[in-house]
């Protein structure tokens, strides 16, 4: 098994499958395109399983490493590898792709092949981001992954999709340009290396570190997104088709957070310590401010989008307290958010497919006509509110506990999500699901079919499994997180 280029497979199997699906052409072959997409997505998931089973938990070093020369003139390499921080996201991403293909099964009937191919190609590119160890390779994947998502929103999106797609694209592009400058600076200063791991060892003065940190911060903050560069996310979600929202929430938001761990902390550790107060302040604003904004949303997708921003606030908060539990809690929160927000967006999509509305006011009493749906939706609403035994609890619990150790009042502010998070999620649930049948649209709803049931079950296994037994998720992280912390504690100023 050791000789198999698993990471290359994780990247190229879905991309290849995407092109095969694209080749089926017009919608006359839609059933074939769907079947091929599902096969491609499942194959893409299967090739990532050995990454977990064959993972060596004892070492913080990169594993499954592949190295090949790409552009020798600039010393750019096709360099892949994962550690305990990135490996779970490769699997999560491949898992989410399966759910996305299933989620769009009957719902997308326009340009089916192109839609599914977009997701498969994006899945490969996202895996590339999580496993790239070369700066240029990372950047190429990072930027290329924008294109499918941009197209998915722009083509299969809602009425205001063009504004949303542009806003999404420009926001993230703006961040990326600064990121590119930072990469070039590091390339020059490291004497011509694009290897990210070399950059980790590079001594850098304080002011250069600060500039690098700020460039990274802008790039990643837009992706996470952090307050105040978050306003593209609700618009993008509202216009995106269900599958687009699932990937956006479950995976795309994790890229920025991952960037903090792969670039900001190890490359600019002194600046990270120096400016941690800024990031923590922005994180707390995200948790509290965005929580209240989520409370008054009238559109369900916007509500869940805002709640995503608040949950991602826990991630950035966890990172910048520089404790093992904080970082692992943040990583757990990232994975959990993949399951929970993915499921929430899927649930909203299920209702939208039937009643063609996302407005809370258009619903009421859905439980009367869709009891099975209501049960699943309750599970994920509770997970979103951080109820123990669901994955949503584990990350919040760890980050809050780590925060008490860091500073009581930071924990106090962060823990307010216990109340506000429950309020916005359950108030929405109450208005949408509970009550008597509100109107004839609700009366005409039909309960979920076998396919939708399956998607919910997949998400539920993730959310409940991780809530009841998080140990398998965190034990793979320990070595890498401890090594990261050890590294970040050392000054790079000489």
């Amino acid at each position, binding site marked *: 098994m050791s000789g198999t280029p698993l990471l290359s497979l994780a990247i190229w199997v879905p991309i290849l499958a995407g092109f095969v699906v694209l080749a089926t052409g017009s919608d006359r072959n839609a059933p074939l395109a769907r079947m091929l997409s599902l096969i491609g997505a499942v194959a893409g998931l299967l090739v990532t399983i050995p990454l977990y089973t064959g993972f060596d938990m004892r070492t913080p070093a990169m594993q499954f490493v592949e190295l090949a020369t790409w552009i020798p003139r600039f010393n750019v390499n096709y360099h892949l590898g994962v550690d305990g921080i990135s490996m779970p996201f490769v699997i999560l991403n491949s898992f989410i792709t399966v759910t996305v293909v299933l989620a769009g099964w009957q719902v997308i009937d326009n340009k089916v092949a192109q839609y599914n191919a977009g997701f498969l190609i994006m899945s490969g590119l996202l895996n590339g981001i999580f496993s790239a160890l070369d700066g240029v390779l990372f950047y190429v994947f990072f930027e290329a992954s924008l294109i499918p998502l941009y197209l998915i929103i722009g083509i299969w999106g809602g009425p205001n999709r063009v504004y949303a797609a542009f*806003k999404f694209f420009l926001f993230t592009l703006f961040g990326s340009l600064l990121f590119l400058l930072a990469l070039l600076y590091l390339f020059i200063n490291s004497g011509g290396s694009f290897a990210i791991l070399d950059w980790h060892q590079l001594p850098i003065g304080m002011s250069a570190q600060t500039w690098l940190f700020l460039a990274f911060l802008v790039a990643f903050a837009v992706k996470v997104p952090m307050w*105040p560069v978050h*306003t593209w996310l609700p618009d993008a979600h509202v216009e995106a088709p269900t599958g687009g929202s699932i990937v956006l929430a479950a995976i795309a938001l994790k890229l920025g957070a991952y960037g903090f761990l792969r670039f900001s902390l190890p490359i600019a550790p002194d600046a990270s310590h120096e400016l941690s107060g800024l990031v923590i302040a922005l994180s707390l604003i995200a948790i509290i*401010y965005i929580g*209240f*904004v*989520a*409370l*008054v*949303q009238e559109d369900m997708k916007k509500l869940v989008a805002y709640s995503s921003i608040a949950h991602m606030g826990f991630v950035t908060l966890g990172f910048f307290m520089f404790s*093992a*539990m904080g970082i*692992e*809690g943040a990583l757990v929160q990232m994975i959990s958010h993949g399951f929970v927000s993915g499921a929430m967006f899927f649930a909203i999509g299920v209702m939208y497919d039937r009643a063609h509305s996302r407005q809370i006011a258009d619903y009421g*009493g859905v439980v*009367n006509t869709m*009891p099975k749906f209501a049960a699943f939706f*309750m599970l994920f609403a*509770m997970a979103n509110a951080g*109820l*123990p*035994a669901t994955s949503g*609890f*584990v990350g919040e*619990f*760890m980050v*809050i*506990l780590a*925060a*008490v*150790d860091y500073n*009581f*009042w930071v*924990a*106090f502010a962060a*823990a*307010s999500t*216990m*109340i*506000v998070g*429950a*309020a916005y999620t*359950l*108030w929405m649930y*109450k208005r949408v*699901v*509970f*009550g*008597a*049948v*509100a*109107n*004839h649209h609700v*009366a005409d709803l039909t309960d979920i079919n076998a396919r939708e049931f399956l998607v919910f079950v997949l998400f539920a296994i993730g959310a409940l499994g991780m809530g009841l*037994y*998080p*140990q398998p998720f*965190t*034990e793979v992280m*320990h070595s890498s997180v401890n090594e990261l912390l050890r590294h970040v504690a050392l000054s790079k100023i000489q």
Partner: protein
Amino acid sequence: MEMQKLYLLVPVAPLVGAIIAGLFCRVIPRWVAHTVTIAGVAIACIASYVIFRDVMAGNTYNGPVYQWLTSGDYHFEVGFLIDQLTVTMMLVVTSVSLMVHIYTIGYMQDDPGYNRFFSYISLFTFSMLMLVMSNNFMQLFFGWEAVGLVSYLLIGFWYTRPTAIFANLKAFLVNRVGDFGFILGIGLVLAHFGTLDYAAVFAKAPELAADTRLALFGEGEGVALMTAICILLFIGAMGKSAQVPLHVWLPDSMEGPTPISALIHAATMVTAGIFMVARMSPLFELSDTALSFVIIIGSITALFMGFLGIIQNDIKRVVAYSTLSQLGYMTVALGASAYSVAIFHLMTHAFFKALLFLAAGSVIIGMHHDQDIRNMGGLRKYMPITWITSLIGSLALIGTPFFAGFYSKDSIIEAVALSHIPGAGFAYFAVMAGVFVTAFYSFRMYFLVFHGAERFGLAAPHHEDHAAHSKAEKHAEPDGSHADQDHHADDAHDEHPHGLAPGEKPHETPWVVTLPLIMLAIPSVIIGYIGIGPMLFGNFFKDAIVVDAEAHPVMTELATHFHGAFAMATHALTTPVFWLAFTGVALSWFFYMKRPDIPEAIKARSGWLYSLLENKYYFDKFNEVFFAAGARLLGRGLWKGGDAGLIDGIIVNGSARFVGWFATVVRLFQTGHIYHYAFTMIIGVFVLMTLWVTRA
């Protein structure tokens, strides 16, 4: 090894029942649902009894089941601590739960959500057992939130009722306010002790308490660590055990079906906070400030919630306010360092309050779901078993000598009298006054329901509560004409129509309802007499409850006054406590049986006082205006002002507009007329030449 499997069996058996009844609730017949869940709880109950015997033989246990999570230097486990306190709770929880399961067969027989209901109450039993059997704070928090979840699901069980789904959201959110404090308390424990394991934390507590202070409020000497931890944990207890000001959810929780009002909102879940503080006695003993806080909150709850019971007319709400008041008594006992007394009252209360609730439910069935006590009267003729068992429950509640409630409540009062903690003086006044109030409202209800003239079966009940209720119902079905009639047939589980038809008489309920009443009436009479000696003074709890006898000698002093259960009861006849209760009963008889005009006159005269009570001290109004509306206002302000106005309006779209404006201005020069360009060019050449010439 043998016993460890048995420990695991206790929570797992109800869980399996809940899963079977829950996952397959739409396919399995009713008898399967109630058989599997009752079997699960019965197994748990029998196993608890076996474990009880084993613990009495001296075999306690503390160990992990599985490693839940490790992170950094911290380990989180799921594990059991089986000691005297745990088995007491296990027995109370499983036996009351078993009675409620049986009772539910009768109470819910016409409800389409029958299987779902059984699934929920078994899931509750599982969660509560996980809570009490935990050996660490993490699992405690898991159980804590899980019982909250089931409570949420059950309060909103009749999910088409607007009042029910309002009440369950309110209950969940108010509990979350408590949990907010609770998790911060847990965080402080982990930060300072490095573990969440009870035994390790308790062992290290005295040493850390001595000199650890937290600089929470800037400079100064800071707050003692133990005070901070205990008060934060107690805030959690205030949510779950409904102490002022987090009590507001409990009266509304009566929207749920009566069996769960008995099980969750009287006997078990609401006592989780009391249990938790008793479990944490090694920590609370280290902070007099926290104990003072506890005793003051408890005494406010005990007295002021009792007053509200006097003016309620809904049979369940009277019992609910009585529960609030009794939870206050337990909290007072905790504050007085009389933890064992609090647990003792918790136990007796669980039996007699579950009995009172189930009896109330029996009355409600007999009255065809009319809950207004003003429409009852004289029911003793028609419902003899319900009548006698209610009388037993009420006598136990008001502390009649020899009944269960007497021993526990009298011990609380004695303990408070002996306590020297700041606030104990006020607490003593509150619990004494509370005795009279309890007796008065309990027997007001009892007389109005079971004695006097028969007021039921009168055509078209014309009282405000009912009118409000029907209005709410209409609100629930805003366009009944549009809605599918089939769905309405489905919704028939809503308890309608209310009340007895003219001329109709109430009937005694079937045996599945009356058997649990009888089964609960027995401990309501005897358990105090049996239990007081060993539980309070017989070193029953051993190391499970820790009291610093030097600093808080209440229990040792109490023991010197105790000369056996019989002597205690006979002696009580000469104490003011007994006569206060007696006066309460007598006065309620005089007011409601002899001279009903007097309470009416009082009500008419005391306008502001009555409206203060009628509005429950305006807690709900304040919360609605300040917190609920305030949060929405803040959210809207941040959304419209911050996100849409400042960030998107000025910065994002503003920069786009700026680019657009700049382009518009520049565009003015691009007219497309050749002579404009030629003219501009000539001017340019002229300027350049001028510059060149002048420079030269």
